[in-house]
């Protein structure tokens, strides 16, 4: 930044605000992680202290790894999240391409219809969804969750991606048509790489609510074989006694995969957020 546009007090002020926000945002996460490594007594006596040699205890992690089948829960969460994410991005991008590229009757009406889901929470339809899943024999399967999450993620994906796809040069698509590329090749090889930052943005916004969801796993797939991590962690929360060591350890572990997925997308995400500002 040039000298004329930055002044020391203003820089300090901006950083102070940003640091304060970071501390507030990270504080609960930090408390969960440090307490996951402490003994039960230490958690209650000094919840804000980092683990010391006396209070350091891995009992929570031991419980999590021996009681219940957490490896399976992780696998379930990961399968549901990744498959839903893939379907949301694929179908969302395809619908967005059709809406932005082709002129057909009811185009804008269709766009509005597909975007309606942003305003209406899918949980309002829980009873109907449950009846539907019972009728089709999908209760207690991961398929049920994947279907629901795909439906949940699509509206926002279509909305954001169709805006971005309108910006892709028509000339480029037409050049592809003249060179004899099929519409699928134009979509996958020419258009998708150009909207990659938007795809990453959509991926992050779609992925986090799916990974964290407790509602639909509890209702649609509570069986032992299909439990997700968030649901699995609930077994340690009892009505009278809660095994805090285990709950905190489970939650700490649950952060890891989503953090990895986020890091994969984040470089693209930053480009996506700043794309509009720089151009």
């Amino acid at each position, binding site marked *: 930044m040039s000298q004329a546009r930055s002044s020391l007090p203003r820089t300090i002020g901006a950083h102070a605000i940003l640091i304060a926000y970071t501390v507030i945002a990270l504080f609960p996460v930090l408390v969960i992680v440090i307490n996951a490594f402490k003994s039960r007594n230490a958690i209650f006596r000094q919840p804000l202290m980092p683990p010391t040699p006396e209070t350091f205890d891995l009992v929570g992690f031991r419980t999590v790894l021996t009681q219940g089948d957490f490896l399976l829960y992780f696998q379930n969460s990961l399968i549901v999240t990744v498959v839903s994410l893939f379907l949301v991005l694929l179908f969302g991008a395809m619908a967005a391409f059709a809406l932005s590229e082709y002129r057909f009757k009811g185009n804008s009406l269709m766009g509005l219809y597909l975007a309606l889901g942003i305003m209406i929470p899918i949980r309002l339809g829980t009873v109907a969804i449950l009846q539907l899943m019972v009728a089709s024999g999908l209760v207690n399967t991961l398929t049920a969750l994947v279907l629901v999450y795909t439906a949940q993620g699509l509206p926002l994906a279509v909305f954001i991606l169709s805006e971005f796809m309108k910006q892709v040069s028509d*000339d*480029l698509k*037409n050049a592809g048509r003249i*060179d004899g590329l099929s519409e699928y090749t134009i979509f996958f090889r020419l258009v998708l790489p*150009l909207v990659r930052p938007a795809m990453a943005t959509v991926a992050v916004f779609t992925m986090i609510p799916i990974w964290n969801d407790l509602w639909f796993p509890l209702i649609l797939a509570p069986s032992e074989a299909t439990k997700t991590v968030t649901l699995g962690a609930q077994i340690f929360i009892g009505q009278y006694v809660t095994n805090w060591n285990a709950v905190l350890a489970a939650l700490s572990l649950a952060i890891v995969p989503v953090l990895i997925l986020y890091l994969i997308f984040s470089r693209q995400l930053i480009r996506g957020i700043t794309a509009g500002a720089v151009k």
Partner: protein
Amino acid sequence: MGSLKLQNVKKSFGKVDVLKGIDLEVTDGEFVVFVGPSGCGKSTLLRIIAGLEDLTGGDVRIDGEKVDHVPPAQRGIAMVFQTYALYPHLTVKNNMGLGLKQAGTPAAEIEKRIAASSAMLSLEPYLERRPAELSGGQRQRVAIGRALVREPKLFLFDEPLSNLDAALRVNTRLEIAQLHRRLKATMIYVTHDQVEAMTLADKIVVLNNGQIEQVGGPMELYNSPANEFVASFIGSPRMNFIDGARLGETAKTVGVRPEHLTVDKKKGTWKGTVIHAEHLGADTNLYIDTEKAGLLTVRIFGVYNAEPGATVYATPEPGKTYRFGSDGKVMA
């Protein structure tokens, strides 16, 4: 071989008629330029010829064959776009070869054609680069090269020079003209710039409001425009139009080109005062507010010194005025 015939081509977007029945014939080897103001339908017409837009009525024939339902890739055409439209993920070489590869041309033949056309456009040093590593002029040359290797019946150019800076525009214009002379291929070129139209075309098609106003050679359009619109569009600075009634003429409007007016400080047809003078070196544009004819632009070759406010007389050269009727058409 490459001839094109348009019969009563119509196009509407919803209720808006963009093209209102275009008839045109282009013979083999011709360089035809579609020119007109923005929104006149020239680009839409080019897209219809390319097969990128469906037409609402009429038909398009390339080499006598009706192509209304033939996809763009099989029409035997190649197109150069305003924004270059190179594939960002492919090297220059693959950009040029993709169309042929899709059509199933043997690899050896593709190599041969790429070598030939990159030599013609001096693109050899850049063959392994990606479009992002090229300058604007180089990108447009690659786009032209991509059209060349397909050896099409028709070359279509959609405002190819609009994104280049002024100096490069003149160079590339020259290159396209030489290319046409060497290949003797049929080319159709869309532009809103009448200078490009005048310098490149064998035949100019002036479009306005989805209709053809006039078709003819550059000099034909300049010397005998069919109507007021063509007269005002071809030539720069623009033709002066004077209300016929003020001159006591039967014509609705009288037109005189700025270069067909002479200026004298003592005597002449129309007396007026100089409002502004533009000195361009090779010529001078004078804006004169005349008592009888209103505001006139006069183009004087060479340097002419006139202060704003000075009184001058403008005289049209005999036989160089145009008379237009109330329908805008030129009167006999």
